[in-house]
């Protein structure tokens, strides 16, 4: 076990998988010089053919990755969530739909690594947390890691998976540290992580909000409240059983989601529990998600948008009223 920074864990996963499998290559903007940190040392080890700097052409290179995957390569594409809008047609019309549309002929082992920068004054065009919009589209596996160990293990799984995966890398975690197990450790898709056992309320938290949920749970101990914290780790596939089992035990649910609240991942979890876990509930489900506004530049307003530890504490109290 080694203490590893989130970005380094991503870098390790890429290097290990590129060493393991020659069909893995990576493309994106400014990756050879590792502008965002996760692609350091790749060019030196793997050369220009497998580490490709692209022009600013998301439609072009998102699609080129799809075409390469169809004929046997395993491309990794580095991008930012906010640039995904530019290449949306390729992600939706091609990556998500091809396999089904062609009756199962297509195999698309392509991974899009999309960083979500938010919370740091990046304003409306660089702060997207868009995974719920992709959950709505069948055909894409949606990965939302919250720790260095998970981002490494999930990214490795994604690279070996034969379906299109989008790994949403939470930029607020970029400098976070955590223990990453040594060796070739994969994290399975669709297995939620129960980070903290509790009896009174279940908090399901996603990506950067997981640590806030853990801090909120710690704070609530002083009030004699025992909170169970669950990180789904992947939204597609979603481990709904772990969530339903937890709600059966606690009778209460708070869903924390850095995405906008309407049709959010939190909404989907709340709806599953409302339909399949209704008789376990002792209180209404509470969503703690981002306000339904664009991300304002000024820190004075931006700090009001996202879930916080205090909002989660308040939501848990609401379920206990």
């Amino acid at each position: 076990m080694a203490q590893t920074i989130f970005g380094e864990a991503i870098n390790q996963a890429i290097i290990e998988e590129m060493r393991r499998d020659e069909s893995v290559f990576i493309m994106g903007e400014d990756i050879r010089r590792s502008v965002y940190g996760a692609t350091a040392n790749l060019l030196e080890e793997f050369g220009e053919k497998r580490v490709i700097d692209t022009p600013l052409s998301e439609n072009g290179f998102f699609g080129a990755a799809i075409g390469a995957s169809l004929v046997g390569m395993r491309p990794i594409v580095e991008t930012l969530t906010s640039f995904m809008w530019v290449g949306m047609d390729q992600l939706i019309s091609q990556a998500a739909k091809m396999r089904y549309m062609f009756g199962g002929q297509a195999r698309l082992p392509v991974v899009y690594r999309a960083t979500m920068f938010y919370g740091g004054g990046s304003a409306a065009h660089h702060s997207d947390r868009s995974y719920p919009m992709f959950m709505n589209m069948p055909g894409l596996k949606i990965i939302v890691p919250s720790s260095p160990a998970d981002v490494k293990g999930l990214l490795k799984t994604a690279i070996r998976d034969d379906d299109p995966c989008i790994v949403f890398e939470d930029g607020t975690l970029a400098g976070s540290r955590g223990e990453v197990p040594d060796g070739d450790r994969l994290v399975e898709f669709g297995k939620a992580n129960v980070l903290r056992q509790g009896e009174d309320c279940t908090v399901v938290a996603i990506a950067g909000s997981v640590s806030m949920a853990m801090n909120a749970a710690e704070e609530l101990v002083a009030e004699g409240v025992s909170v169970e914290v669950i990180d789904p780790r992947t939204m597609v596939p979603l481990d709904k059983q772990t969530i339903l089992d937890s709600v059966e035990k606690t009778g209460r649910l708070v869903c924390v989601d850095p995405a906008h609240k309407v049709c959010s991942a939190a909404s989907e979890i709340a709806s599953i529990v409302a339909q399949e876990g209704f008789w376990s509930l002792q209180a209404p489900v509470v969503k703690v998600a981002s306000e339904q506004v664009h991300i304002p530049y000024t820190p004075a307003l931006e700090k009001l948008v996202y879930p916080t530890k205090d909002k989660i504490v308040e939501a848990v109290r609401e379920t206990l009223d």
Partner: protein
Amino acid sequence: MAIISVPAPCGLSRTAAVRDRRQAERGAEVNIDKELLRLMLRRMWTIRHFEVKVIEVHSAGEFTGGAHPYIGEEAVAVGVCAALEDTDYIAGNHRSHGHPLAKGGDVKGAMAELYGRVDGYCKGKGGSMHLADFSIGILGESGIVGSSVPVATGAALAAKIRGDDFVSAVFFGDGASNQGACHESMNLASIWDLPVIFVCENNQYAVTTSYKDSVAVEHVADRAVAYNMPGVSVDGQDVIAMYEASMEAVKRARSGQGPTLIEGLTYRFDEHSLGLGRVRRGAYRSEEEIEKWKKRDPIEIFTRRVVSLGELSEADCEAISEEERLKVEEAVEFARNSPYPEPSELHEDMWANPIAVP
């Protein structure tokens, strides 16, 4: 083959060229193996009979949805695919029947797909606009125009990375030539010297909008100048001209010299789509224009030429047409008798590594 250079736009180097558009009518000699000539004629007839039949059975209500006849444009896909190997890849667009049939795709599977049956290429899940047969390099047709251009470019990127010698060709229309995906892909292919052939089927109308009103240059091929690749505007009614231009492009691609843009100047004899309702012809193109183009039927042009040169006999040509007509008739019977998918098929084929259905 005569190459006439055109004034290059913006004072850039002259990479675009316009082929002599009437060499077929002039009866210029051909230097192509007879078997290949037969194959080209055969595939043009396969497509023609297929489309004629599709219009008939679609009008009779035998299947639903849109379908986009390729009648009049056969020489483009056939000329390009005649220059490809089975191990090469193609991708295409909504006007999709001609491309896979030109690549040698199974006629029965294509027809069964239009009928939405389990024996279709895509088990009935794709339909007319999404024919694909990966077993012979047909990476699929895209209903979103221009959207398959990056995909074909990516297949070529894989060839470059691995050092494979396959090439990919992608078909798109004059309308799609205005899509960002096309422009981005041509730039990518050129900076990376990818083995891809961009084939613009300029049938002159994006539904009802003339390319003269939507493309800023005289020929779509002129745009190649901006991507520093060869661009050539070819008579799209002349399958031999299309084949020869494609052979040059394939040779360049396979030898690592990068992409080529080929514009096949052609014409859609029928309307944009079946099932869309009939657009009154005079509303966007004149009867005179349509009749003028119908006189340049690619199959007639080819047949006249090879017969007059003594390459094939009239009887040969008629026999080929009849064989293909029967093949299409059989395909319709096959499609009619093929079952619809079971309801249990609904959730199949979503994932290569399956996950639980939400």
